[in-house]
């Protein structure tokens, strides 16, 4: 934008801010303020309360749950500045985005980039409205971090693929309506034999078994495919070229505001928990100075992480590639885990409750979140894989596999 246009633009933004404020006042049920919680959005399929259901519908119809996506597919069609205004106004009243999940975080942006017009019109609007729950069919037993070693076979049967094999770590597989999956369409090439397909989870031949995690919850599944017919129109991009699409989707996973990248933000600031649970000295400082130092280290690093995330956003907006984006996944995961460990330490034994009497629901949730959070440095490219990527792609230190 040039300098002459700036005042006009400023005026339009002010008007937009007013519009947002009024719409939120009319649509956001104030009893829901700050009622968002990480675990529930990651795990489970808990029924929404009537006000939450109403809020979700309103946001879905407005398209503001996916504010930057094109309006023609049901998105908000907002520019960056408007998006920022929306986020600021929501934050000001404790409103949260009820539209989320893998469809928003990972699949939507990928479809916008690679899918056909028909596929976009079919799949993106329900994502914007939060109607369809997607799961990810990537990992397989034995493949782990070496994703391209995947074996699940999709045989060309003319108008459909016949899919056989097993996926694992299918997040939310037991609740998902659809699955985006990487399948093997050519056994002779490793990376060049992989295709990206969309699978309706109601198709006959799909069996889902939840995996119980150390947190006691089951947010992932093993998913078995036996002679599952996937229509050819559900192939995204070209056959055998799915690896590229699949990797791109992982980039969205890594840089988006999902699990790890919340950077330990959920649950309020750590030192507030400390002030609640720990003793203070006469100057109002925490008595346990050793722990105080570690809380401070965490909070400073968290601030540095957020500033970096902001810097990456700015750079992306300016069209510049930001090397710093490569560090967000690992630092975000570290923040999530460190926050949980420090919370535990602050609470002492009170932070290790599993169930039953003597613990608040938040405390019990804290135990589960702590354990669940160990996954954020494993899934979506483990910390080790991320470090390999930084060393090789960003720093040019080539040589090791992976």
């Amino acid at each position, binding site marked *: 934008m040039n300098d002459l246009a700036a005042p006009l633009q400023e005026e339009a933004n002010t008007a937009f801010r007013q519009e947002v404020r009024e719409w939120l006042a009319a649509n956001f049920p104030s009893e829901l303020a700050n009622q968002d919680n990480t675990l529930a959005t990651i795990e489970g399929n808990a029924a929404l309360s009537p006000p939450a259901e109403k809020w979700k519908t309103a946001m879905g119809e407005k398209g503001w749950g996916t504010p930057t996506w094109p309006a023609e597919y049901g998105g908000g069609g907002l520019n960056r500045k408007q998006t920022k205004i929306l986020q600021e106004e929501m934050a000001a009243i404790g409103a949260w985005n009820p539209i989320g999940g893998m469809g928003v975080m990972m699949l939507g942006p990928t479809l916008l980039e690679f899918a056909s017009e028909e596929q976009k019109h079919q799949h993106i609007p329900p994502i914007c409205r939060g109607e369809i729950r997607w799961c990810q069919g990537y990992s397989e037993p034995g493949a782990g971090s070496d994703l391209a070693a995947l074996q699940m076979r999709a045989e060309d049967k003319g108008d459909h693929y016949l899919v056989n094999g097993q996926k694992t770590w299918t997040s939310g597989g037991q609740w998902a309506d659809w699955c985006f999956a990487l399948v093997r369409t050519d056994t002779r090439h490793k990376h060049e034999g992989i295709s990206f397909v969309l699978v309706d989870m109601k198709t006959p031949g799909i069996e889902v078994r939840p*995996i119980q995690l150390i947190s006691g919850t089951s947010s992932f599944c093993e998913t078995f495919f036996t002679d599952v017919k996937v229509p050819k129109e559900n192939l995204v991009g070209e056959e055998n070229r799915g690896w590229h699409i699949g990797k791109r989707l992982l980039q969205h996973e890594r840089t988006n505001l999902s699990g790890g990248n919340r950077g330990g933000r959920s649950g309020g600031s750590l030192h507030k928990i400390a002030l609640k649970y720990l003793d203070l000295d006469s100057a109002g400082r925490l008595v346990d100075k050793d722990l105080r130092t570690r809380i401070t280290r965490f909070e400073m690093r968290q601030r540095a992480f957020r500033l970096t995330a902001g810097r990456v956003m700015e750079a992306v907006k300016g069209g510049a590639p930001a090397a710093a984006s490569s560090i967000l996944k690992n630092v975000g995961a570290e923040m999530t885990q460190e926050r949980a460990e420090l919370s535990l330490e602050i609470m002492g*034994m009170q932070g*290790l*409750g*599993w169930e039953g*009497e*003597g613990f608040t629901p938040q405390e019990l949730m804290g135990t589960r979140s702590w354990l669940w959070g160990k996954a954020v440095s*494993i899934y979506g490219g483990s910390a*080790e894989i991320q470090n390999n990527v930084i060393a090789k792609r960003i720093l040019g230190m080539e040589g090791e596999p992976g």
Partner: protein
Amino acid sequence: MAVLTEEQSLLRDMARSWAQEQSPVKAFRQLRDKGAEGWDPERWQSIAEMGWTGIVIPEEHGGADFGFLGLGLVLEETARTLTASPLAASALAASSALVLGGSAEQQARWLPGIAGGDVIATLAVDDGPRHCPEDIHCVARQVDGGWLLNGEKAFVAEGGSAELLVIAARCESGPALFLVEADNPGLTRSPRRMADARNYAALALENLKVPDAALLGKAGDPELLDAVLDRARIGAAAEMLGLATQAFETTLEYLKTRVQFDTILARFQALQHRMAKQFTEIELLRSCVESALLAIDNNDPELPLLASLAKATACDTLHLVSREMVQLHGGIGMTDEHDAGFYIKRARSLENAWGNASFHRDRYASLSGY
């Protein structure tokens, strides 16, 4: 490994093979799945039969008087496989209180039962979820012919099963330890279900009356409490050494077999160096734990310093190793069907037991005069 006497070596080997064969992690898993008491009566029976319940109890009271190094070896080996037993609470912590502070009558009344495993005893010091023995709110007021105790005790290990509770309270002149029987009408016990699936209880003491004969040692003597706590701390450190050792070995085994990118994980240098780091920490921890155990047996005046060194080092090391266990196992380590979760959960409970690393670093510095 410290240089052991022949008897100590035998004891260690016996404990190791019993734990690995008779009390594998699978046994703990079954117990956890049953949602039972948090300890394992059948294995407790074996433990008692082998005499481990009386290792630090004098022979005259049915024990072996074999020393803390011996008991530490047993705790280490049984902790490796997560054996769920009241050994640390009863045969170490509560026994220490009786051995160090008990009158002849008190010892004769309780030690034989503890040594034989028939009586489960425990030590209850902290009122809240963090260790803070210098700030006990639970009060003991001297009344006619006895004491009246009021207050709370939190997260008492084996607190739900113990027949005898050694309870710390504050009297006018300082801290004091009292022998309280579980059926005392002033005592209410509420179970606390923890991530590690062991047996903890919250105690409420409401006008709990005990006779004068229930007082251990002198009222207001902080040295007795300290001495008992140091033994409990070192015992926890020995358990943590066992957990860390087993967690590390399990992870090492996994890295040697798991293939990724057409090679075993053990060949990746970054993982090699992380394992070397953990190995280093565990070896340092072993030195600390063994020295602290020996310091008890030798009446070493540096015992408080060595106890804090052992416990703090155990906390830091097991914290690292238990996190690396989950991380290096990748997805499989996140699943309940794998053992990694058991180790990290148990690790955090023991980190809290009798003072975490932060507590013991502060204590070490203070004891050193800075």
